[in-house]
């Protein structure tokens, strides 16, 4: 059995040289903070777009287009698509599906310089029954067939003209008026403007066209037969995807970019912080030569010295890691707004933590402590007790 050096010995040691402990743990905390924040952001992007998808909905776009923005479907085909037997019916007998037009418009940012693309969607009258989670949280619903629009709550107040009662220009002398604000459980629709399908189409010269058709299926398993029937019709030239799959693709580029950036930063940063921990441990071991010699003389084995110092450096790094992770959780209150590469439009995200992210952040801290503490601990374990006690 290995004789263990009491944990309290290590913990007290950390408090003896407080400023050094704080500096080393602070460096580690910053690394963990950056790492966890970036992962939370990347997760936030995936989640925000993922929440836009309903599990039993299929999206139909023109073959070859990879986003609603570049897709176009003739109005006459919409009825054909929705007439399929796989498509669910609404209580009034109408098919439960929507043909929508999706575009982006440039609006002036508020609180920051420049303009950005905001997604604008022309929606049919039954959109609220189709997307059941959408709720008007302020103002009222837009009157069908008018220039009234409603806006997602995430972009409210972020752009010029995007607040209750304000207007923005879709085309000359035809201002669109914001009459309501809606929520959709934190999905990317909350970063969109919704207006009447026909108004939007005529304002942008897209008469007789929609960008995409979404259909609620009787049952999610019927996607294959729905897909087969539509994709095999050469006259249509269309493409069918599960809505979840579509939004996964929409978030892939941006979230991959942010993850890659974050991992690269974390690697460089952690090398720096690891060396910081190493310096601290080396110094604390050099200062405790006599103590280590005494411990060895008392009968503690090399292994227990090694373990003891590894524990000390792990305690140091976990302390830093915990501070960093908690600080990163605080980022949950920050809203991050950027352009999504796939949809070319501004989407507001939040930093969303998961247990997995917090765990891997702590793991990163532990690894930094382990690697940073290893060589100093080996040095301590290899000390000759007699020489060490003499302080040579």
């Amino acid at each position, binding site marked *: 059995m290995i004789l263990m050096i009491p944990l309290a010995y290590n913990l007290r040691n950390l408090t003896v*040289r407080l*400023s*050094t402990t704080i*500096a*080393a743990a*602070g*460096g580690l905390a*910053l*690394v963990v*903070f*950056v790492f966890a924040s970036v992962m939370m952001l990347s997760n936030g992007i995936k989640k925000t777009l993922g929440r836009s998808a309903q599990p039993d909905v299929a999206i139909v776009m*023109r*073959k*070859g*287009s*990879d986003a609603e*923005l*570049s897709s176009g479907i003739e109005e006459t085909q919409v009825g054909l698509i929705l007439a399929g037997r796989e498509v669910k019916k609404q209580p009034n007998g109408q098919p439960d599906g929507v043909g929508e037009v999706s*575009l*982006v*418009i*440039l609006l002036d*940012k508020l609180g*920051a*310089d*420049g*303009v*950005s*693309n905001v997604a604008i969607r022309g929606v049919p009258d039954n959109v609220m029954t189709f997307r059941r989670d959408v709720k008007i949280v302020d103002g009222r619903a837009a009157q069908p067939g008018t220039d009234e629009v409603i806006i997602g709550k995430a972009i409210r107040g972020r752009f010029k003209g995007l607040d209750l009662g304000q207007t923005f*220009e*879709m*085309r*000359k002398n035809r201002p669109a008026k914001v009459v309501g604000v809606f929520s959709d459980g934190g999905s990317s629709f909350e970063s969109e403007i919704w207006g009447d399908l026909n108004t939007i189409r005529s304002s*942008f*010269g897209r008469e007789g066209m929609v960008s995409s058709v979404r259909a609620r299926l009787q049952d999610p398993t019927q996607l294959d037969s729905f897909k087969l029937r539509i994709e095999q019709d050469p006259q249509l*030239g269309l493409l069918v995807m599960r809505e979840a799959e579509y939004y996964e693709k929409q978030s892939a580029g941006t979230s991959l970019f*942010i993850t890659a*950036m974050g991992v*690269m*930063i974390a690697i*460089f*940063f952690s*090398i*720096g*912080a*690891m*060396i*910081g921990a*190493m*310096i*601290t441990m*080396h*110094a604390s071991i050099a*200062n405790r030569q006599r103590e280590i010699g005494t411990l060895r003389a008392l009968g503690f084995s090399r292994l227990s010295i090694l373990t003891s110092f590894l524990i000390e450096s792990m305690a140091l790094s976990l302390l830093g890691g915990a501070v960093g992770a908690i600080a990163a959780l605080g980022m949950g209150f920050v809203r*991050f*707004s*950027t*352009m999504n590469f796939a949809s*070319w439009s*501004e989407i507001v995200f939040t930093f969303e933590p998961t247990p997995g992210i917090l765990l891997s952040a702590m793991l990163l801290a532990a690894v930094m402590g382990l690697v940073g503490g290893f060589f100093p601990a080996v040095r301590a374990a290899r000390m000759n007790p007699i020489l060490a006690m003499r302080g040579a």
Partner: protein
Amino acid sequence: MNLITVAARNALRNKFRTTLTVVGAAVAVLAFIMLRTVLSAWNVAADYAAKDRLGTRHKVSFVLPLPKKYIDTVRAVPGIKQACYSNWFGAKNPKNDNDFFASIAIDPTCLDVYDEMLIEPDQKAAWLADRKGAIVGDVLAKKLGVKVGDRVTLTGTIYPGDWQFTVDGIYKAARKSVDRSQFMFHWEYLNESIPERRRDKIGWITSRIDDPTKGAAISAEIDRIFDEKDVQTATMSERSMNLSFMAMLSAILTALNIVSVIILLIMMMILGNTIAMGVRERTREYGVLRAVGFSPRHIGIFIVGEAVTVGLLSGLVGVALSYPIVELGMGRFLEENMGSMFPYFRIEPTTMILAVLLTVGLSTIAAIFPAYQASKLSVTDALRRVA
């Protein structure tokens, strides 16, 4: 030997610790340089924008087209030397869906308007005579594995179907902001191949003006003319256009800026830690120095001098590391694979100088507090102190 040299030599007392500190801080410098280079590479498009070029697009949205006849109106505006039009085509390489590159249908005069794209005269002539011809950037040509005379098939995302092209020319860049991964072909070929309804529409107009100082006035004049028409326009200098594109990504840029400040904080903690440790171990020596007649100021100079030496060393090592890693490794990779976003990924000389200055500055700041404390200590206290 003067005091500064003594201070500098103090850094060699604990060679192992100094080495670790320099390596740690140098890695931080490397990370800092990497982040700043990402930021400066992002700005290249705006920094090197042509001063005599204007862009005209649809006022409401960049996805909406302009009527083709607008080009004639723009060409007639006084002060406009040349103007050409283009359409974003949005092609995909059927062999690799994830390759992103710009594919644009252009009016032939665009080659004169964008004169920073260098192309051999015989290749240019061949392209002008070939309806299905294409001109490809050298980086993209390498990636697609094509040479002059090869046939290429691309899939259209906005204009559906498979499109056949012949590569007639490969252009090189005369300026570092040029995206060397563009695929350009005749606008006429596009226009005659698409349904009637979509024809005779252009994405944007690029014009060159005689006098760069009159850019704002000419832009206003163009927009004024079209203000009365069905489709209104927004005209601005190439620089403003590039800047407004970057503003869309401003949140990411801000985040990178914040992260680059955090790395400086980490670096300061590494340096400060080492300095504080050194001071603590040598407190008795400072007492001896004071006892033999050195003033508190001298003690301060010793400590700060040592910190500056370590900081300078870290900065220089960091810069030396960053050149092969950031410029030769990452830079080459990004230029070849993400050319449309980072056409020119190199470390700016100012970034290197800034990195070294900041490292020295931060190590000085990190040393000030321990130096102040050590110099305030009374001789007897210092002598009594046990490290």
